[in-house]
């Protein structure tokens, strides 16, 4: 398969002092040479060299800009192909003109993620890293970007490699014991094996446990706002968003449909769903909204239950509370300006028992800070700092870790039951094998599906 040469502006759109256009593929340097106005023949230049020159419009050989031409030859480049980057002045007009010139020189506009696709196909990164790139492209907040970057840089891969190496070390002892029964070689006692594998298992389980955090960081914390009509659900959403998004009126039942928004809350991406107020209604359209709200409720990670002092806690509310008993819920009493002595607050809190109730006045912009703190506390134990940790955010990785943990546990169980080494090693081999799926070191037939689902690969 002969790949064509692709090109794209790789710096962010908008005004900036420097812009970069990247070409990757067999003709990258040739095309670069065509639009290079300078004394040198770029085609003859060595890899990893920088050349100053004018950037020409291919059509009429006029100068568009001046810039630096960076040559990186295969395989020592990000994509593993010949790469030429043109660093020029920023600003979309200049960049677009250069891109047009490059495209008329024979390059094709790169699709989203195509550079990383090529990098993966050229063996420049493993599957976990390639998947991380996909996540970087779709990162919701800086923290989730950071997490993806870590994976891109291979932190998860490095962790997995270490765990596999540790497992392999135990396997090696067992194998040697089997192959050299008569020799006085060093052998691991059952207690030593127990200790080493238990440690590995703990690490695997710790990684497995980060999935929830990881998914929240990647996909957002699915947060549903519920409450009776007109308690201030949409106002809460807008307050969190910092702008008016949902229609806010005094008329109960204005929010007919659910509205989804992403909010960056102390670097946690919150995927907020404002729902229609749940109440008995004859309005068909409103009923659809209410049904939808109920289904969102069951799929949510967090429920924000909004109450207000006038209505207090109704039987209807109590029914809903019973329904969401197993969900993380934060109860909010809005419109506290209508409850100046805190009497209603006290009554409701009493009814809720141990469940905490936050006082809120959206009108007076009070209580939002406490709400944000409460959410962070609830899901990250007060910390959103993930700098120290490797977090698993991909279900494929989680499955492999989970499977690996199962094999390691079954090894430990068999070890305690006094099963002999040659059987024990089977579980270790399987654990070693399934963990390798994360980095792509274990090759599976389904790998193909993974690749084809990540990257759109044409015929």
């Amino acid at each position, binding site marked *: *398969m*002969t*790949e064509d040469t692709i090109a794209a502006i790789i710096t962010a759109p908008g005004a900036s002092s420097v812009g970069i256009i990247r070409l990757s593929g067999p003709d990258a340097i040739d095309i670069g040479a065509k639009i290079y106005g300078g004394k040198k023949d770029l085609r003859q230049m060595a890899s990893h060299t920088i050349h100053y020159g004018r950037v020409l419009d291919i059509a009429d050989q006029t100068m568009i800009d001046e810039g630096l031409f960076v040559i990186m030859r295969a*395989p020592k480049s990000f994509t*593993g192909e010949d790469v030429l980057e043109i660093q020029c002045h920023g600003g979309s007009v200049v960049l677009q003109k250069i891109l047009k010139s490059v495209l008329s020189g024979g390059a094709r506009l790169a699709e989203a993620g195509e550079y990383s696709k090529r990098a*993966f*196909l*050229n*063996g*420049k*990164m*493993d*599957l976990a890293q390639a998947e991380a790139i996909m996540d970087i492209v779709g990162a919701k907040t800086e923290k989730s970007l950071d997490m993806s970057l870590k994976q891109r840089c291979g932190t998860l891969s490095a962790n997995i490699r270490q765990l596999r190496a540790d497992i392999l070390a135990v396997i090696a002892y067992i*194998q*040697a014991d*089997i*192959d*050299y*029964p*008569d*020799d*006085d070689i060093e052998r691991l006692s059952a207690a030593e094996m127990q200790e080493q594998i238990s440690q590995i298992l703990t690490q695997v389980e710790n990684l497995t446990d980060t999935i929830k955090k990881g998914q929240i960081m990647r996909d957002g914390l699915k947060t549903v706002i519920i409450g009776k009509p007109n308690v201030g659900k949409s106002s809460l959403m807008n307050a969190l968003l910092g702008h008016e998004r949902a229609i806010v009126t005094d008329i109960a039942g204005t929010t007919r449909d659910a509205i989804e928004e992403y909010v960056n809350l102390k670097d946690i991406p919150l995927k907020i769903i404002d729902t229609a107020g749940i109440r008995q209604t004859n309005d068909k359209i409103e009923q659809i909204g209410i049904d939808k709200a109920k289904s969102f409720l069951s799929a949510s990670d967090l429920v924000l239950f909004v109450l207000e002092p006038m209505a207090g806690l109704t039987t209807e509310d109590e029914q809903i509370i019973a329904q969401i008993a197993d969900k993380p819920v934060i109860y909010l009493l809005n419109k506290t300006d209508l409850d100046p002595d805190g009497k209603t607050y006290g009554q409701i809190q009493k009814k809720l028992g141990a469940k905490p109730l936050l006082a809120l006045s959206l009108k007076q912009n009070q209580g939002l800070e406490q709400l944000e703190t409460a959410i962070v506390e609830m899901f990250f134990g007060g910390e959103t700092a993930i700098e120290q940790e490797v977090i698993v955010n991909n279900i494929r990785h989680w499955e492999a870790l989970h499977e690996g943990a199962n094999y390691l546990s079954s090894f430990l169980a068999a070890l305690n*039951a*006094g*099963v*002999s*080494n*040659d*059987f024990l090693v*089977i*579980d270790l*081999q*399987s654990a070693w*094998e399934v963990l390798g799926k994360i*980095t*792509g*070191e*274990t*090759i*599976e*037939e389904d*790998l*193909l599906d993974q*690749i*084809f689902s990540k990257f759109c*690969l044409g*015929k």
Partner: protein
Amino acid sequence: MKEFEAASYDVIVVGAGHAGCEAALSCARLGQKTLVVTLNMNNIALMPCNPSIGGPAKGHLVREIDALGGEMGCNIDKTAIQVRMLNTAKGPAVHSLRAQADKYAYQNEMTKTLQNQENLTVKQLLVERLVIENHKVLGVVSHTGAIYRAKAVILTTGTYLRGRIIIGEYTEECGPNGQLSAKNLSVDLQKHGLKVVRFKTGTPARVDRRSIDFDRMSRQDGDKENLFFSFLTTEKNGLSEEPCYLTYTNEQTHQIIRDNLHRSPMYSGVIEGTGPRYCPSIEDKIVRFSDKAKHQLFIEPEGLDTNEMYVQGLSSSLPEEIQEQLIHTIAGLEKVDVMRPAYAIEYDCLDPLQLKVSLETKQIDGLFCAGQINGTSGYEEAAAQGLIAGINAARKLSQQEPLILKRYEGYIGVLIDDLVTKGTNEPYRMLTSRAEYRLLLRQDNADLRLTEKGYQIGLISEDRYQQFITKKTAIAREMERLQTTTASSKDETLQNLLTKRSSSPLKQGIPLAELLKRPQITYNDLLSLGLGDNTLPTAVAEQVEIQIKYDGYIQKQLEQVARMAKIENRLLPDEIDYQAVHGLRNEAKQKLNAVKPNSVGQASRISGVSPADISVLLVYLEQKRRQKENIHG
């Protein structure tokens, strides 16, 4: 030398060591008119190194050879003077049989078998070159100019290709034990485009039994039971049983070696060949494991009619005077008379990446290779390849598909797949750790795995096959019975036994199979409880017990096989030019083009082919497939 037409055969086997014997016998038994040539008629099936057959993984190979209809198992059963089952503290998959052989008896028996084999001619001659035209082998030419024609040639040259013996500063161009070496054949092979590499191995000193103080060593006897390699053998050979002895090197021994390391050809650069890591010389052990205070040595008899004893663990290429000094520091060997000094031997062999999985060379049609010429070490490894090369040469001549054993079918499959896929940069020894599906590849079930194949190939007699079928049926029937018969909770003897073995008593009846799964209960217990079938042969009861007891783990291994099967079954056509596959790294392109793997699975085992290369390959295949679909669809 004036050359002359001498005779014509179907197959010629060059060399009559362990590979050559199996190759020659299998070809002849499959009806091919076969010639086997040896440098010395007195050295057929010579054991130039250790006087034993079997051990971990190697014992498995012998069982498999036997199950396919090879000779090694029968031959060692006839000539064993001590047999032990090793690893019995571990599970059945790694139990491994090892026998001390009477070396001379072993040779005699094999020589008789060869000389009496129908369709087989044995000649003493030195092969100078091959007759090759248009990349096709047509025969061999002897040192006397005799041309022997054949449709296929199997090279089993052992360590004789440009063999060179080294003892300290002394070197001699010869084969083991000062035999003639074949100087011209490897040059001829290179002329025909085959790549030759140089390997090294070694053997320890032989000492006079009468001069050993056995009281200073610990004695090791064989097992009492009747243990045989061949599924055919039913009775002991009647030879008297001999013990082995264990002693150790000590600090004084090590000091002598350290002081004289500069005189070791390994370290002075006289030896260029690569030696095996797992069978190091004593000087290697001292250097590499400098923290070990002692190394164990086994003193093994070479035969019943000789006083020579083999000092296992003391392989060396140090000068003879140093060898003398160091051996006398060892407990029990203080006054020993060395009968033959230890020596290292260098020899030419072929890079096995030049072989197809059938063991035919890729470059030269009809030329097969087996044994040490393919970079292996060990009698058993050689014999296994000899058998397969013989079978496949015969099958080629009858226009049949080659016999290719999968990695989950036998150690032989692992051995050959490793060789032709990964190559080897040191003499390759079979180890159980090389077999990833070890639990399926037990020595006890080699017949169940392979005898059917042996029968279809034509190496298993109708009589033996019927015996095999009877055994198989009996196993199935007893398994069925144990699964459908209930052990009663009212059986007091049973409940008492369970309590005595600290296994929880039955609350209600359970199938006998479930009872047998308990680690505390054996088939013998079932027999004593009257719940077993005492008419069953031991081998049948053993199979039933293993298959039931370890069913959980066996299933796990089968799952592993199934996981791999998907990529094993994704075939790679021979005509792929990997240079043209965009995205493969250069090293991968070269390796893939050299090996030309049959499947993605095999490709994934090539060293230098990374998982990323495999994903590139999978994408390439998928795109090819879609293109094809596009054209046809």
